[in-house]
């Protein structure tokens, strides 16, 4: 296959375009998709680029089908992915629950829009519950929440490796702003930065006689015995808990001496970082904590934080979806938990700054 870029290339493009390039850089084989705003252009760019690099695309009749065909692609040993948003993400949970049951390395890019239901095609952080915890089951999945185009590129590449390494469904959680805005980033060949791309392998149709040359390929999502399910699931849970510290990522600054730590993820983190910078320059003891993975969370770091600081402010473009995840981990900590909820609307640095000032007064 021809090289995408000569090692590195500066670019100025939309987030949706970034995802298509990242999937190519990650050597994804096929995208399955169904259109929904604001992620449509991921499909558009992929279909434009794919034939040049001998990649495939299949448009399905809905998101249920896009999810299940992604599962089929993965089982055939292809690096397969899909992208969706809003009500499409709701439908996507059914196949992703199956991927969780069968430990399949599916990759889904979500560009959050407003909810519930059709709501807005624009922006929100209201798909956190659904993406992090999913349909029926235990939410054994990995969710990266990006905050810039560079991260969208980096983590889309990483998502494929994470999925194929640990065999849990993996998600890149963006939003409509990230999808539609343009900013600069550096595109690169992962290998040029020492990133080894994990080779996919088929689940089905392997060589040899099943049960003789190799274990039989049995991937079930149906059980007749409670105990049978329990035994299998507890094995999964154990695997998941083991990889949590390895997979969990966060970013924090200025928390050591802080009177107030502001917590947020995704694009909202940009507003938080800008607000904290301004407040710090004015001599206020404010820090930030940003989970990069929403699932699993960086549990020890969050516990340490909530045991050490006086006040925490969770800021999100949803009504407590991130806060609920954080509070569960923080249980038993002494920090006072304050919240700033703006479901379905953007949050600016000025608004975060004003809220922090009010708290510190």
């Amino acid at each position, binding site marked *: 296959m021809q090289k995408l870029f000569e090692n590195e290339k500066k670019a*100025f493009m939309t987030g949706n375009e970034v995802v298509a390039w990242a999937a190519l850089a990650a050597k994804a084989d096929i995208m399955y998709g169904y259109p929904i*705003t604001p992620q449509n252009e991921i499909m558009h760019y992929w279909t434009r680029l794919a034939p040049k690099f001998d990649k495939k695309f299949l448009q399905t009749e809905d998101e249920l089908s896009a999810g299940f065909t992604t599962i089929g692609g993965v089982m055939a040993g292809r690096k397969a992915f899909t992208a969706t948003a809003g009500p499409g993400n709701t439908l996507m949970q059914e196949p992703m629950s199956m991927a969780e049951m069968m430990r399949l390395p599916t990759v889904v890019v979500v560009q959050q829009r407003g909810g519930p239901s059709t709501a807005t095609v624009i922006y929100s952080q209201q798909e956190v519950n659904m993406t992090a915890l999913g349909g029926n089951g235990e939410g054994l999945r990995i969710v990266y929440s990006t905050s810039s185009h560079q991260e969208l590129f980096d983590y889309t590449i990483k998502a494929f490796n994470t999925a194929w390494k640990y065999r849990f469904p993996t998600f890149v959680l963006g939003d409509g*702003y990230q999808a*539609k*805005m343009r*900013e600069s980033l550096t595109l690169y060949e992962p290998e040029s930065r020492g990133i080894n791309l994990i080779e996919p392998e088929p689940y089905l149709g392997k060589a040899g006689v099943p049960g003789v040359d190799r274990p039989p390929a049995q991937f079930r999502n149906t059980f007749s015995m409670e105990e049978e399910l329990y035994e299998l699931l507890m094995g999964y849970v154990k695997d998941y808990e083991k990889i949590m510290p390895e997979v969990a990522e966060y970013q924090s600054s200025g928390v050591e001496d802080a009177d107030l730590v502001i917590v947020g993820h995704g694009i909202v983190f940009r507003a938080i970082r800008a607000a904290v910078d301004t407040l710090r320059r004015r001599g206020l003891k404010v820090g930030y904590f940003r989970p990069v993975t929403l699932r699993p969370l960086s549990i020890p770091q969050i516990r340490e934080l909530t045991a050490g600081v006086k006040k925490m402010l969770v800021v999100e473009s949803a009504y407590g979806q991130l806060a609920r995840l954080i509070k569960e981990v923080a249980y038993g900590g002494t920090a006072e938990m304050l919240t700033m909820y703006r479901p379905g609307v*953007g*949050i*600016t640095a000025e608004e975060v700054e004003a809220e922090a000032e009010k708290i510190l007064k």
Partner: protein
Amino acid sequence: MGETTKIVLAGEGGQGVQSVAGIIAEAANEEGRQALYIPNFGVEQRGGVSVAYVQISDSIIGSPKFQTGDIVVALSGRAVRRSSRYVGSNTTFIYDSGIEGVEGELPRNAGMILPIPAIETAKKDFHPRVFNIIIMGAVVGATGVIPLESAKEAVEKKLGYKFEKQPKLRELNFKAMERGVELVAEAAKYQPV
């Protein structure tokens, strides 16, 4: 964090505010600066007011949208009403002087209000199609975020293929941009103190 220039462009669909915003952001990026451009979108994109948000800075840019612009440009009556919320005491508010019946609705809290006859100038002296290039010149003139030459290069990059076929178009566009810079400078001269 360094100084960030925040620009809001608002107009009717088809007036070209999104392409102007895109070209300015791209030109700034080419200059090695941080740039972020986001269109408003949604159902109102069809037949509604089109708003573009641009930020240019020397350091990391925060949230893609913001509360107060340094420059707010409104190109229709509805756009004046829609964009007034982004005006603060340090904002330069630019609007087309040909818009009728908005006198009473101009954001009086703006630091400076500059009416420019862009629509009329485009029609009379150039061609209606270069209206948005005049606006681009006005933004470049009012903000100084990018040198005029880089703005021209960015237009060349975008429309170069058309200029190749019709070299006259290049001159028309570049002149229109220069005129945009002049219009803002002239309007600023007549600002009541």
